[in-house]
């Protein structure tokens, strides 16, 4: 059941990303360009966060999710160097290409070799075992 639920989630999520044009790197770069600003994605983010704020409020009133014993939420609360440096790097990559992980995955269906290489490199970076030098 959990797998079916996740499958449905992925299906709806993709349609949201496609309809909102969040999958188009040019629209993302336009949103991030202060000198030639395209506000479209501000409406996407605004609509998503307001809807989720409302729905999460009711979901977290429950003791547990429908199909599991507990909610799986990050326990980390600290604003550390890893969070700050990671966010700076991610933002720079996002602003450079206009691609972030979700829209990149949806764009696989375009079968563009550049998207496939992007996902391969990103996945290797995400899955690489943690190295000794901690930030």
């Amino acid at each position, binding site marked *: 059941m*959990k*797998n079916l*639920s996740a*499958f*449905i*989630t*992925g*299906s*709806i999520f*993709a*349609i*949201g990303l*496609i*309809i*909102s044009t969040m*999958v*188009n790197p040019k629209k993302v*770069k336009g949103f*991030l*360009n202060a000198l*030639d600003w395209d506000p479209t*994605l501000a409406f*996407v*983010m605004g*609509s998503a*966060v307001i*809807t*989720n704020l409302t*729905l*999460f409020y009711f*979901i977290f009133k429950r003791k547990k*999710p*429908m*199909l*599991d014993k507990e909610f799986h*939420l*990050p326990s980390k609360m600290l*604003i550390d160097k*890893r*969070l700050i440096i*990671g*966010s700076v790097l*991610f*933002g720079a*990559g*996002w*602003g*450079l*290409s206009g*691609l972030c*992980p979700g829209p990149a*995955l*949806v*764009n696989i269906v375009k079968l563009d070799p*550049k998207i496939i290489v*992007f*996902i391969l490199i*990103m*996945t290797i970076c*995400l899955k690489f075992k943690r190295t000794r030098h901690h930030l």
Partner: protein
Amino acid sequence: MVNAIIGGYLIAVAASFLMFTTGNIAGFSGIIKRVKLGLNWRLSFILGLLTSSTVTLLIKPELFSYSIDLSWPVIIISALLVGIGTRLSNGCTSGHGVCGLARLSKRSLYSVLIFMLSGAVVATTIGAIK
């Protein structure tokens, strides 16, 4: 603009549905980081995403009519930055942005403000040079 609001609404409904049923955060970088082969929710999520993207491409190809107009160096550098960055900060636009802000997570608020600012600096600079 209407499509943007509907799209954002669907993204949130999807994320809330996952939280309500399985108690998990619909964050792409975390899902890609931890996904394994076999029957599990993370792979099911990705398969759902790819299935509905393929169906949409087949019935409404005009929604995919934009081009991926990016050079190889941009693709490679950006993929490294996105992969390493989201690994360090434990989240991207979906996990920290759509879900984290709605959970009122302080870490997510910091992350979103920083990656928006950093993204704006890079995109504006490149836009000005072109």
